[in-house]
């Protein structure tokens, strides 16, 4: 594999994307660090290259295209459009890894199509068509199913909000759920600090106010007095989290779970509409692998359909291609205006490494 071959392959993908109606766009390499830190959290610093301008402050070398493209769309009014791009992204790698810090991404993003099932199917169909010869393992998932399962819980909104906030952090999610269901005394809902009587209460310093402290103490007390989430619902939620199978078997299993998790129904409709839309663009969905967990360890901005194309060589490292729906992200970037958005990228270096039978370095 050499750079010209990779580039040539990527160009082929790009021209298929423009043929499908996408406008070829380029974005700045230097992205405002503040924005990326807000979106990804502090962890991005350990993964992206940070650089600084003495006057304008910190920038990051573009770690992916989705955020810069979505930002560009939202800053120019969020009109419906399809965009394609091809260029390098940069990710820091640990010193014991042979994975390159600079790799190409070629991608396709659909903005503003309110028929989400159709847009999801259009994107996924293109990726299936382009990657079919590579014989990869394809997995789809749906973050909307997980969000709906959480919403189904018969408990107060604060608990649901806490679970939603940590949907992408499996360990913390598990601990919260264990606490809310009484599976073990939860450290996150301990009733605050116990001071020795007679201790002087310390002076309050910092920006966080007395009212904020009082509010949380009241929440902790209310939490301690709240009934646990029932075992049937916890089992249902766990079943949703662990659901793996084909698209068809998953839909059937989810349907059964609506008995204990009624709010799943609208999310199941979304999923089955997407299946129908996929079928109508000619995707063979009979053996398509579905996993609700797919996407939980990926980008935090995906909030609906997610997919990944992997080969045995890339398992656990970087997928050959991946993508998903990120409507909520457009809301954050658009200052409240949300536009339906779905997109994905192909990593041509990874694809060609797999075809040559070489493992993509871990």
């Amino acid at each position: 594999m050499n750079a010209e071959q990779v580039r040539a392959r990527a160009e082929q993908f790009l021209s298929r994307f423009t043929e499908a109606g996408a406008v070829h766009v380029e974005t700045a390499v230097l992205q405002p660090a503040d924005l990326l830190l807000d979106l990804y959290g502090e962890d991005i610093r350990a993964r992206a290259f940070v650089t600084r301008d003495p006057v304008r402050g910190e920038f990051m070398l573009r770690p992916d295209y989705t955020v810069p493209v979505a930002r560009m769309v939202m800053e120019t009014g969020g009109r419906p459009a399809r965009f394609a791009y091809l260029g390098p992204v940069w990710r820091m790698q640990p010193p014991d890894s042979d994975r390159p810090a600079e790799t190409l991404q070629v991608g396709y993003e659909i903005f503003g199509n309110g028929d989400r099932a159709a847009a999801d199917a259009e994107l996924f169909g293109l990726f299936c068509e382009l990657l079919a010869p590579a014989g990869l393992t394809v997995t789809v998932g749906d973050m909307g199913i997980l969000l709906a399962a959480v919403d189904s819980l018969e408990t107060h909104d604060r608990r649901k909000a806490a679970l939603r906030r940590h949907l992408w952090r499996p360990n913390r999610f598990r601990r919260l759920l264990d606490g809310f269901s009484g599976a073990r005394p939860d450290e996150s809902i301990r009733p605050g600090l116990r001071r020795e009587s007679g201790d002087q209460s310390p002076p309050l310093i910092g920006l966080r106010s007395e009212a904020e402290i009082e509010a949380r103490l009241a929440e902790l007390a209310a939490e301690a007095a709240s009934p646990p989430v029932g075992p049937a619902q916890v089992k249902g939620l766990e079943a949703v989290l662990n659901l793996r199978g084909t698209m068809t078997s998953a839909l059937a299993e989810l349907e059964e779970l609506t008995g204990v998790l009624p709010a799943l129904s609208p999310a199941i409709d979304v999923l089955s509409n997407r299946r129908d839309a996929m079928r109508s663009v000619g995707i063979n969905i009979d053996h398509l692998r579905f996993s609700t967990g797919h996407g939980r360890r990926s980008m935090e901005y995906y909030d609906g359909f997610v997919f990944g194309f992997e080969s045995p060589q890339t398992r656990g490292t970087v997928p050959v291609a991946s993508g998903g729906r990120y409507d909520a992200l457009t809301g954050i970037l658009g200052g409240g205006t949300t536009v339906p958005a779905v997109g994905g990228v192909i990593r041509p270096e990874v694809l060609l490494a797999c075809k040559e039978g070489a493992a993509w370095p871990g």
Partner: protein
Amino acid sequence: MAGLKLGIPAKGRLRLAAVDWLGSVGLTVIPADSDREYAGHLSGDSRIEPVFLPASEIPGELDAGQLHLGVTGQDLIRERLPFRTTRVAELLPLGFGFAELVIAVPDAWADVVSVDDLDAVAGAFRNVHGRPLRIATKYHNLVRSFLAERELADYRLVDSQGATEATVRNLTAEAIADITATGQTLRANHLRILDDGMILSSQAVLAASHSAPWRGDDRSTLLGLADRAGFSLPVGLGT
């Protein structure tokens, strides 16, 4: 002509303790003269050349292979070489320079005793103030990887190279992560360590560089030191 370069902290208590320890293993530091405290030699072994430099620079010089050996804090090694580089090996804990890297919050935060509490507060803080909760530190890598492992959300690290305990009072941070020996400075600044907020319990160590040029003589010098100080050599070091 000395061959093996040994980094020694140039100043302060760490220098005194390091010089004491070297004396205890038969390597007495002889200053060149009273006006040049950063130059000298070791009376016990002329093949070892002492190099005095700030403790915080010793990890980087070991990593770069400019020093063969160095005495410095584990906290500094792990912060400066965040990926636990295979180029530097910690050979021997030295029993001095004890310090703990901890997360501390205002003592008045009666609702916060654990990292889990801090996570919940960070979420609420962002909703109320419209920005992430700030944690001041100079140990960015250690703190970030600890908090990533604990899956803390909605926080930002802000850089503080000194007087970190004052940042909360000065409204430039909501919490801090800093080195403490006794916790006294934290208490005096109305800060309290989280129950599970210990990021690293550190002490001074003798560390060795895999990337330094180890010549035949250097290796036998190191073996002699290992014998006197009572440590064994990691596989591959000095070869």
